[in-house]
């Protein structure tokens, strides 16, 4: 049973998935044929050709798709690292010390409900055209912070006591008990933050002028009324976001082999 049936299950879900994609493309093609207006809605084949063109020959300035994607990824990575290195230590502190929590919460809580996009105008004013990092930082910071705090607070007091009875000092307890206990939550925060950061970036690129980035590509080709390239940009954004998410899930799975799996 076991292996064979799970093999067939896997095969089945792949086939179902492929069928679903083909159906979607056919439906798209059908709508395209009915609308018969390539400016409003180009068909899948036209988008595919646009994809090949942008990927090989590049855009109007001969910047290929891969470079736009790399610039976007680079920006998001900078913001992501900035978000992680600020949110994780602050989250650990806030989780462990009530005083820090009471001091920081009144400032952070209201800020948390301002969408990163709402910061864009002020960012352009204050930080100029390189404000991307700040926008992404905003998107990454809060999910990582909240998850880190939650992770710390979930750490077992018994494990802390075990470390204490062996003579551990605060920093050792933080390193050997609190941090590993909170790590699954921190990783979840990082994954969610990465997703939000990616979306923030593209939004920021749509607004902040530059010659690179997937958001820029969309904006630029919208102005040229080339909707097929706009869709190429959109699909690329979606696929890269998906790839990042899968990558982070994979890392989590590898890191937390010690966790009991619920379900399969």
């Amino acid at each position, binding site marked *: 049973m076991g292996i064979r049936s799970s093999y067939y299950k896997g095969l089945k879900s792949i086939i179902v998935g492929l069928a679903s994609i083909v159906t979607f493309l056919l439906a798209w093609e059908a709508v395209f044929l009915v609308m018969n207006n390539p400016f409003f809605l180009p068909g899948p084949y036209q988008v595919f050709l646009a994809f090949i063109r942008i990927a090989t020959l590049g855009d109007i300035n001969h910047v290929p798709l891969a470079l736009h994607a790399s610039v976007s990824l680079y920006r998001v990575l900078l913001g992501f690292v900035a978000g992680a290195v600020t949110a994780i230590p602050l989250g650990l502190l806030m989780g462990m010390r009530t005083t820090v929590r009471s001091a920081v919460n009144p400032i952070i809580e209201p800020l948390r409900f301002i969408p990163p996009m709402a910061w864009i105008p002020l960012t352009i004013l204050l930080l100029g055209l390189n404000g991307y990092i700040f926008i992404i930082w905003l998107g990454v910071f809060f999910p990582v912070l909240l998850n880190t705090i939650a992770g710390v607070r979930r750490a077992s007091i018994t494990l802390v006591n075990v470390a*204490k009875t062996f003579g551990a000092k605060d920093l050792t307890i933080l390193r*050997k008990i609190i941090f590993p206990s909170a790590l699954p939550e921190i990783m979840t925060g990082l994954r969610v933050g990465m997703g939000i950061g990616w979306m923030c970036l593209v939004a920021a690129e749509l607004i902040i002028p530059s010659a690179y980035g997937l958001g820029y590509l969309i904006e630029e080709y919208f102005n040229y009324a080339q909707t097929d390239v706009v869709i190429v940009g959109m699909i690329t954004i979606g696929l890269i976001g998906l790839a990042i998410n899968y990558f982070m899930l994979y890392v989590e799975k590898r890191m937390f082999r*010690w966790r009991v799996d619920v379900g399969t």
Partner: protein
Amino acid sequence: MWAHEAWAMGLMFVVDSLNKSFHTESGTIDVIDNLSFSVEEGQFLCIVGPSGCGKTTLLKIMCGLETPTSGNVLINGVLPNPQKQKFGVIFQEESLLPWRTVIQNVEFGQEICSGRCSLDIARKYMSLVGLVGFENYYPHQISGGMKKRVAIARALAVDPDIIMMDEPFADLDAQTRWILQKELLSVWSQLKKTVIFITHNVEEAVFLGQFVAVLTKRPATLKSLIKIDLPYPRSRLTPPFISYREKIIGMLQQEIPSI
């Protein structure tokens, strides 16, 4: 205060007129009331008491996790301080680090005590408690009895001055409990460590301890300190064993309000 004199007399572990109250929103709760007893180096003392009487609180004071409201605990003449003394504490609840393998858990105490761990020592205690072959398992992959063994090996591996155990075998089945009791006695007779063993199981206390301290219901105070004058290994079926057991059960029954 006789604690310092007691230490001079060769008592390594002294509890002297200990009191502990907790202050909570719903009022003050007295948990330990004027408790005194002492243990000599190398002795095996069992502490029994009704559930909720303050045994775990006592253990936490003994290993320096809680401070007493008044009175003292002295270990070799000084207040308990895990940063200066070596304790091997085994907690009532599960206490293994779930992200570490069995062998990494055993190394954990050494890692903290001395900053480095010797794989040889870890392996030695692994084999002493019968865990060879399970080094690379994670805690969720081993049984409850094995988890207790790991906790014991971890405590022993730091070469503690004193071992303190809080109902370590309470949630195990009778067979596993008996096996672990025997193993504990054999480890104790090999290593000659001072052991303080908390339990609510009277038979276990009489089987293990050279002395049994019987506590009253909360607030805990010493009801009686009984010397168990039976050679090891003990049989649970001999008349003297049974009479010790019945005597202590009788004492505890006075502490539980009749239903």
